[in-house]
């Protein structure tokens, strides 16, 4: 993951948990709406999700349909993105590629969040040696450059675990440290605020305090992180597929398509151009949305 700078994370806004659902998120949405770039980002993401879900309807041809007679056609009215070496309609393949990207984004970030939120919460809220241990382990994971760690895990387990789930798990696994660190830092700020003390004084149990007061108010930076992380994950999958250790050969996935098109790029540049642009557009959507969320959740910009 990109190393996230904690000073750029928004400061969580202290409100009672019950108010969180009404005033805080409503306010965030209002502010977000005003941010044009963020809305563009949201739009891109929506288009992506719809395309992925409705792929069979959007794609004019099945993505695997080979027809060597029409291979390597440049873009024309029947094949908007041309065809690849095996005569497959490129536009359809690009459309189906969105499915891989979306599912990687959701699943891997989901894994990262599950691990990261739990460990971050324990470390931040309970402190002490639990905190020390968790943060040490996180440091170890941080020491691995992201791609390298994922690469190693994939190559090692590549024979025993089916590739696609392995990809999700490996990518999701190596990101937990960032999520944990952000969530922990957020919790540290929130847990000492007065209303938490008040809840404690009223005899609320740790569990109750943690889930109803501390965690909801610490979520803001994590949400920003998750959005941007989705973009990073998509880029990582593309990079791995490009290197040949990502999705299995033949799957319509953008990174893989760039890799396969590389050797023909001088004569058929569209083979590299369109999947690449799709990656750029998709990730850009998440980045813009993430930035917009960060700005709209920053209490200092009210």
């Amino acid at each position, binding site marked *: 993951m990109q190393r996230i*700078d904690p000073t750029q994370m928004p400061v969580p806004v202290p409100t009672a948990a019950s108010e969180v659902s009404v005033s805080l998120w409503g306010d965030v949405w209002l502010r977000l709406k005003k941010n044009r770039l963020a809305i563009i980002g949201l739009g891109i993401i929506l288009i992506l999700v719809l395309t992925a879900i409705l792929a069979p309807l959007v794609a004019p041809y099945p993505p695997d349909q080979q027809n060597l007679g029409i291979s390597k056609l440049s873009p024309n009215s029947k094949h908007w993105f041309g065809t690849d070496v095996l005569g497959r309609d490129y536009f359809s393949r690009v459309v189906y590629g969105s499915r891989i990207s979306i599912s990687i984004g959701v699943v891997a970030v989901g894994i990262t969040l599950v691990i990261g939120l739990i460990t971050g919460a324990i470390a931040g809220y309970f402190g002490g040696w639990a905190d020390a241990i968790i943060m040490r382990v996180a440091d170890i994971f941080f020491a691995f450059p992201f791609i390298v760690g994922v690469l*190693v895990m994939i190559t090692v*387990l590549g024979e*025993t675990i089916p590739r696609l789930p392995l990809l999700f798990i490996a990518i999701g696994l190596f990101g937990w440290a960032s999520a944990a660190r952000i969530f922990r830092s957020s919790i540290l700020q929130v847990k000492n605020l007065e209303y938490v003390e008040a809840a404690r004084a009223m005899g609320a149990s740790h569990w109750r305090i943690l889930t109803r007061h501390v965690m909801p108010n610490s979520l803001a930076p994590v949400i920003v992180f998750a959005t941007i992380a989705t973009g990073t994950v998509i880029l990582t999958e593309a*990079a791995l597929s490009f290197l040949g250790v990502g999705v299995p050969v033949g799957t319509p996935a953008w990174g893989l398509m760039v890799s396969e098109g590389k050797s023909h790029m001088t004569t058929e540049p569209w083979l590299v151009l369109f999947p690449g642009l799709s990656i750029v557009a998709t*990730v850009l959507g998440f980045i813009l949305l993430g930035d917009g969320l960060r700005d709209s959740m920053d209490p200092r910009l009210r």
Partner: protein
Amino acid sequence: MIRYIVRRLLQMIPVFLGATFLLFFFLYILPGDPTEILGGERATDPVVRAVLREKWHLDEPIYVQYGIYMKELSQGDFGTSFRLSRPVSRILGDALPWSLKLAIVAIGVEAIFGVIAGVISAVKRYSFWDTLTTIATSVLVAIPVFWLGLMLQIAFGIKAQGTPFELPISGVQDGWRSYVLPAITLASVFTAVTARLTRTTMLEVMKQDYIRTASAKGLSRGAVVYRHGLRNALIPVVTNIGLDFGSLIGGAILTESVFAWPGVGRQVFLAIVNNDNPVIIGSTIIFLLAFILVNLAVDISYGFLDPRIRYE
């Protein structure tokens, strides 16, 4: 101050040990049989595989294997490459300088362009330049490094053939010109992040009270913005750039593959494709070490940059 350095050093050691152990865990403990690759075409012969198992200590208990490995490591022995049958330390020793050189040039690009873009963006807030930078940095972060490399190769290598804009797209044989495209590709994302960080930090700093004091003293605008503002804003920015150096060494796998740059990243890539474990481990350890050492150096330098830490 010395205490600070020593403390950081001590913290690094368990991290390094933990990371190498994690690596070892992945490579040797998890399922998968290296003798398959080691044996190559003769791997089906059980005798051959037995010999290989003996040679590589694959039948020993895990902790023995780890112990042997760490001992060899500390002596600088990274084993022998399966693929090339040369000592890994030699292979990586040849490759490392190339990775370092590329990383240094990339850092230079990142630092210069990133900071300048960020400062201009902050000083001329909401201007055309500012909007341009915001959009450009967002887009740059979204562009996959390998794709950028390919696009640059097409633009400056192939389409520009014969024109004065042509640049080398592969290998290191063209002197300084070989560095241009790979360095730009490698630095792209980092430059964008640095520009944004610089801008954000500058804006934060300019809102501080001491900037108001500086204006109230009648200092020129330049002195206020640069001597007081930028000097403070640069602290987190410079440390960030320093940390990027550690990431640049490890993250150059893609760039080195696309541009056939003979660095460590390329070796890793080839090793992965060929299941060449010793090279994978060796490279990863180099990345780890680089990352940890760079982090340590940055932490220490922070003490010099920020007087508040220095005089604790």
